[in-house]
């Protein structure tokens, strides 16, 4: 009898050991990670680049393996439609049974995803478009990697205000939550530094013709201008100003800070001020990153590299480091507590990353950069 019990216990123990490790999405050989980003339509620019950043981080980790496991990523397309974001997210969590989730489309989509993520308890890093609603209130399993729009625009405005004291200001923003946050940050500095704002406009997402906006801006006599568009909007604004022979100092913001903007806007884009929390690709750190990426990315993916690739790469690195530290017994709780313990993680693409107890926002340091048309790149200033 005793013998029987002993064998049963032993069997149970043998059986039990893998059971502890067999958390959803983790097998002895594999860790599944889910990503939801836009891969079709215009925002694919963001989604594809972000995805190849993640792919790079995981491919690098898989070279040596993560405690004997390989990371496999499952990407879902949401086409930037919130309803599809939720579908995709539920699919990766409930059907593919991933261990962890990363990315998530735009800011509105991320906010809508919060209840699903919170309920599921999967370790999540929001790195495509971090906004404050994601980490206020702090959710146990959701981490925001990057910087919020308001902070970025505050620093850019403050920098330009010091550089061009006593000048007249103009701003144009998009009429959505992104534009609202840009304006919020801008208004804070306007109040603090008592800036003289002579023109303030907004445009509907998808507007292509900025003739009337720029004419009014010129009429207002603005000397410093914040172009709050994303990509084609900023290009259209800069080209329109060039047409009107109107040359204020122009600042742009990170969602549109990709190299292609400079090429499209032509010589008029020389000297644009920009702000970002990831390294400019033309800087030494950025160049090193591009070199490093060549090893694992396809040619098509290399062409699509931009700042979102860096953001995705950093997110992938944070996950990989946390998984490594958890060792063989990788559980969600362990992954969450290890992500939380991330301290000064060097990724090469942004300032060292740290989270902390109750701190679900990495609050990356931003830097101001300036466009150089001759080399089609952004260079750090200061």
């Amino acid at each position: 009898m005793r013998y029987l019990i002993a064998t049963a216990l032993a069997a149970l123990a043998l059986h039990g050991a893998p059971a502890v490790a067999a958390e959803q999405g983790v097998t002895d050989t594999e860790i599944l990670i889910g990503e939801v980003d836009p891969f079709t339509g215009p925002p694919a620019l963001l989604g594809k680049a972000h995805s190849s950043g993640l792919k790079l981080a995981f491919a690098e980790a898989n070279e040596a393996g993560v405690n004997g496991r390989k990371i496999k990523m499952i990407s879902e397309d949401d086409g930037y439609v919130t309803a599809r974001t939720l579908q995709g997210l539920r699919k990766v969590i409930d059907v593919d049974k991933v261990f962890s989730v990363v990315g998530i489309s735009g800011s509105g989509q991320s906010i809508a995803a919060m209840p699903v993520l919170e309920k599921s308890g999967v370790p999540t890093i929001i790195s495509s478009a971090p906004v404050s609603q994601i980490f206020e209130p702090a959710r146990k399993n959701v981490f925001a990697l990057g910087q919020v729009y308001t902070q970025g625009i505050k620093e850019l405005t403050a920098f330009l205000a010091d550089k061009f004291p006593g000048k007249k200001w103009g701003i144009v923003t998009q009429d959505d939550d992104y534009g609202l946050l840009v304006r919020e940050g801008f208004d804070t500095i306007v109040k603090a530094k008592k800036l003289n704002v002579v023109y303030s406009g907004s445009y509907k997402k998808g507007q292509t013709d900025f003739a009337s906006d720029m004419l009014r801006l010129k009429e207002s006599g603005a000397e410093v201008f914040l172009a709050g568009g994303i990509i084609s909007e900023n290009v259209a604004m800069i080209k329109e100003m060039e047409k009107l022979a109107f040359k204020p100092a122009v600042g742009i913001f990170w969602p549109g800070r990709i190299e292609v903007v400079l090429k499209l806007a032509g010589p008029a884009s020389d000297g644009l001020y920009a702000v970002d929390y990831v390294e400019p690709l033309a800087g030494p750190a950025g160049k090193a990153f591009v070199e490093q990426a060549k090893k694992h990315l396809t040619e098509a993916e290399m062409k699509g590299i931009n700042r979102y690739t860096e953001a995705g790469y950093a997110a992938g690195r944070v996950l990989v480091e946390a998984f490594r530290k958890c060792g063989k017994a990788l559980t969600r709780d362990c992954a969450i507590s290890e992500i939380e313990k991330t301290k000064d993680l060097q990724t090469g693409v942004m300032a060292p990353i740290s989270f902390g107890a109750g701190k679900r926002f990495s609050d990356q340091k931003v830097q101001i950069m300036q466009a150089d048309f001759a080399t089609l790149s952004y260079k750090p200033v200061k």
Partner: protein
Amino acid sequence: MRLFADLVASGIAIGAIYGLIAMGFAVIYKATGLANFAQGEMSMIVAYVAWTISTTLTGNVFVVVAGSIVFAVLLGLAVERFIMRPMLGEPIFSTVLVTIGVAVVLRSLITLVWDAYPHALNLGVGRDVVKMASVSLRGAQIASILTLLAVMGAFYLFFRFSKIGVAMRAVAADDRTALLMGVSAARIHAIAWGCSSAIAGIAGVLFALVYDLSPAMFQLGLKSFPASILGGLDSVIGSGFGGILIGVAENLAGGYVGSGLKDVAGFLMIIVILMVQPFGLFGEREIVRV
């Protein structure tokens, strides 16, 4: 006053592109009674093909424009022959939905074949700024206005004097009687699709010259639809005017009232005008009998 002149000029420039696409809508509607929801997508794909020609073969503006018009006509004919013609005689709703299906396919082709990045269509012309009195426009914008006028004139002559044009009007007026008179409706449909696609393509190339290529270009179709409604869906030349009116209205609203009103100005205008003229400014009044 200078602001006003500037606003009107740039309004006409963007309106010319709306007008061209709206004429494409009208040609198909006139000949087949269909609204083609893939018009914007057709413009977009032709513009991308033009870009490919300019970056791989030659940047010569004539070659690129000729090449893209040929492609546009082929695209229009192919869509008509393989997708629309089998739907002849089927319920009109189903047929219109098929064009939406075509739109979905074309839209996804863009990011599949090309990429999601915006690109500049650089033909070495059109970027230079031309100053006339106080108004400054880019070369490509002036080209758009001239093209619109030329296409409008060509259509006027076509409908008035050419045999095909008269046949097209006959099919539009009464397709059965036209058939009895020996007009091949299928041929007329094919010609309409070819023409419409060609104009849409020209509009796409001009748009790309002024504002660059991007996968969001298809929204141009949606913006031009009101122009066609304003001018009258069955009035090809009226649709061209409709485009200019909408372009100018948008810019004036944006310039004097505020940017919030800019994107709805065109829509507000069509609501007001349609209440007075239910078939658009130049559209033919449909007489309904019981």
